[in-house]
């Protein structure tokens, strides 16, 4: 085997390669606020990886936070790597150049720890591709002391099983605190000159870290999990997610890329978690408890971030921004403080019912013209009770009216089809609702009003009250989409939807088990990558991969599970108890909604699992009653 290339050799090769590829600025590094430490000045090198291209990955807030935390440590250097686009990948493979970090151009294999974010399932093949481009054995079992430790986190890691053969350790939950503990454990292990197994055992002792190789699964002949048990003394029987009891002051030194990327802006999380409990929403379940940042802290961070980045756009992020208890005060103060500063402040994820004309006035001042988005998710009262997104009759239309009265001329409505027990009548009601909203808009603002219906397809997710349900059949989904396409033909209405094959793959993977890992590997070997890209996604590869593995994918997507079945992710404890999820599922069958838990505690389990953290930090702003 030839000697691996050094950073300066890679840099010299790139000199000739980059001018020949599309958007070479993606690979240049050297952005404002990036951190480049002399390689030998630190004892631990961490490569943070977003397994899609730079344009999409740069704005990922989770990795940006970890980059900041790690680089604040004088003994640690964190650098970044992204998936190369197809043109560069072809050249790297042809010339035997390993994937490299943007900062120092070191090959990924020369880092000590590779930390990968898995925000969604359709990024799995890209993850394997990156390990391969780095020249690493794909399977954790085939890597040894000479290879970097490969860890992963992110929302998809809440069901770590599909990727468990390839990742050495998963971080379950929020990474802010645990990432440094992992680095400490790695440094201690390095000094002790221990074995790979010693390192994994040290990691398994860290709360919230899951080492899949320390567990064994057996299956019933029909494919259901028969037993899941630890086979190593260091391995706990369940892994409880990590949270930060009190949100630290937000990141302000954002990387500022020198080429345009998606979401080129300051992103400030004003609140983490959501108390609403929509039953389809994994984020709403796994990110509990609700924690708010103080208004003053947010305003100061906005100021600092503008100074550090020069960005003109600020997104105040959360799962449900209008539920932030101080939202009026925050927007008023922001308007006052940044008046005349030519900033665009946006508040995504506004709830229809917690949204006031007053808030709209505040937004109007700071927002340039543009669209407005509301997410009713379903159009009938019956359906909204089932998914637990209840809305008083007429509220959507009232809110739409207020939006138009405040001068907006376009409104986007998010709906989801394929909810449990949804009928064509429920879907027909989506069409009716869009026309009602359009008529209201046209009455107020005239003929140029546009209504955009964004329709996605429901995929049951692990750790939600719908984790047991079967997906709607492909025929049904097609019938519903056809109904919408026929019904929403109007020059002022626009319909966008997710293509069923992409949704199906997500449904196969999200509730997958360890056997799914073999399918992912096979699909990647057959050429699957960039599965989240409509023009790159090749559904037939996945169908073949499942067939070759002898697995019927409908087992994962189109199967109603029994409530007492051992689910592949049952050993992961999000703090929300399985009993609560069962009860909530039962309530959905009864058509019964559940009140917002900020008003009345529903005993979801968070306080019994993680409540002691709240005791340690008595001033934390948890929204649990």
């Amino acid at each position, binding site marked *: 085997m030839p000697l691996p290339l050094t950073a300066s050799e890679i840099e010299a090769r790139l000199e000739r390669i980059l001018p020949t590829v599309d958007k070479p600025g993606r*690979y*240049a590094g050297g*952005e404002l606020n990036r951190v480049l430490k002399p390689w030998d000045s630190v004892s631990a090198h961490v490569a943070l990886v977003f397994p899609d291209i730079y344009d999409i990955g740069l704005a990922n807030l989770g990795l940006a936070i970890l980059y900041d935390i790690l680089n604040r440590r004088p003994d640690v250097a964190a650098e970044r790597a992204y998936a190369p686009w197809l043109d560069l990948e072809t050249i790297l493979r042809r010339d035997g150049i390993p994937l490299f970090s943007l900062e120092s151009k070191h090959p990924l294999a020369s880092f000590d720890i590779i930390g990968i974010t898995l925000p969604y399932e359709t990024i799995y093949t890209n993850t394997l591709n990156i390990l391969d481009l780095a020249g690493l054995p794909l399977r954790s079992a085939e890597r040894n002391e000479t290879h970097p430790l490969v860890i992963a986190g992110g929302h998809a890691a809440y069901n770590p099983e599909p990727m468990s053969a390839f990742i050495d350790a998963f971080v379950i939950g929020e990474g802010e605190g645990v990432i440094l503990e992992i680095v400490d454990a790695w440094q201690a292990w390095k000094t002790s000159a221990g074995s790979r197994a010693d390192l994994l055992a040290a990691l398994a002792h860290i709360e919230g870290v899951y080492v899949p190789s320390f567990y064994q699964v057996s299956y019933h002949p029909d494919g259901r999990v028969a037993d899941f048990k630890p086979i190593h003394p260091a391995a706990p029987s369940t892994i409880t997610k990590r949270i930060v009891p009190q949100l630290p002051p937000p990141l302000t030194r954002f990387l500022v890329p*020198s080429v*345009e990327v998606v979401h080129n802006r300051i992103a400030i999380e004003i609140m983490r978690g959501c108390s609403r409990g929509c039953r389809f929403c994994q984020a709403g379940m796994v990110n509990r408890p609700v924690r708010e940042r103080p208004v003053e802290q947010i305003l100061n961070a906005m100021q600092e971030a503008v100074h550090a980045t*020069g960005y003109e756009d600020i997104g105040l992020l959360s799962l449900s921004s209008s539920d932030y208890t101080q939202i009026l005060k925050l927007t008023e103060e922001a308007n006052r403080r940044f008046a005349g500063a030519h900033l665009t402040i946006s508040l995504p994820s506004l709830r229809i019912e917690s949204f006031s004309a007053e808030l709209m006035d505040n937004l109007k001042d700071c927002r340039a013209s543009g669209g407005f988005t509301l997410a009713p998710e379903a159009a009938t009262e019956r359906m909204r009770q089932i998914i637990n997104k209840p809305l008083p009759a007429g509220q959507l239309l009232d809110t739409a009216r207020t939006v138009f009265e405040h001068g907006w001329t376009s409104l986007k409505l998010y709906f989801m089809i394929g909810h449990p027990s949804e009928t064509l009548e429920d879907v027909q009601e989506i069409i009716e609702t869009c026309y009602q909203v359009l008529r209201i808009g046209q009455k107020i603002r005239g003929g140029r009003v546009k209504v955009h219906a964004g329709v996605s397809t429901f995929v049951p997710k692990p750790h939600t009250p719908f984790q047991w349900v079967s997906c709607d059949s492909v025929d049904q989904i097609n019938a519903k989409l056809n109904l919408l396409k026929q019904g929403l033909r109007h020059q002022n209405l626009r319909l966008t939807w997710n293509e069923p094959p992409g949704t199906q793959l997500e449904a196969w993977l999200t509730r997958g088990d360890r056997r799914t890992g073999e399918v992912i590997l096979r699909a990647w070997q057959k050429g699957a990558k960039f599965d989240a890209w409509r023009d790159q996604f090749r559904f037939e590869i996945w169908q073949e991969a499942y067939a070759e593995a002898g697995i019927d994918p409908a087992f994962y997507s189109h199967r109603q599970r029994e409530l007492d079945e051992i689910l592949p992710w049952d050993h992961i404890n999000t703090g929300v108890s399985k009993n609560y999820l069962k009860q909530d599922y039962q309530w959905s069958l009864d058509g019964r909604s559940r009140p917002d838990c900020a008003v009345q505690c529903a005993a979801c389990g968070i306080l019994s699992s993680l409540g002691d953290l709240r005791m340690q930090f008595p001033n934390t702003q948890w929204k649990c009653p």
Partner: protein
Amino acid sequence: MTVYRLRITFAKTAPLRYTSHLDMMHVWERTLRRSGLPIAYSKGFNPGPRIHQGCSLPLGFTSQQEMVDIFLDDVLAIDAVRSALQEAVPPGIELGAIEEIDPKAPALQTQVQSSTYIATLLDPVNPAELKASLQSLLAAPALPRTWREKAYDLRPLIHSLTLLPASSGGQLSFEMHLSAREGAMARPEEVLSAMGFSPHAARVERTKILLA
């Protein structure tokens, strides 16, 4: 309202070599916002900071001399402007001269006449052959070429081509002095192509912009 116009000369170095002309506009907008200088905004529905860039630099090139004009709402000492900018510029911008310009002077872009570049060939080339190649280009009565499906003559846009002494590493380089007027701009990669090289065969750096 006072409008104070400043011309900033800067070097564009490696970290920004793959940042396009359009993206450089964003780089300057953000640099100015970070600097806290009282930047003037255009009027209208979508007000933006008033910045005039000089002539564009092809992607992948570095430059010892680029120019940008910025407009401020207040008159400030040049030194104060310099120190504010010094704090704010990203890696890849090295500040040079800053001078006051008549706000009514024509747009920077329209004043650019020509540019000089140094092309350093990445692969070994015979110096004599290179010299002959440069001379034959200069001797040609016309150099018909096509750029983006438009036919044009490159020859009148070339003012001079000069072989430079070899570097210590043995790489050969030559200087090009090319027209850079609006609508009559010669591209260094076109000269390379006319000489039979791939446009990626050389590392190119702009050394000077000459104004009217």
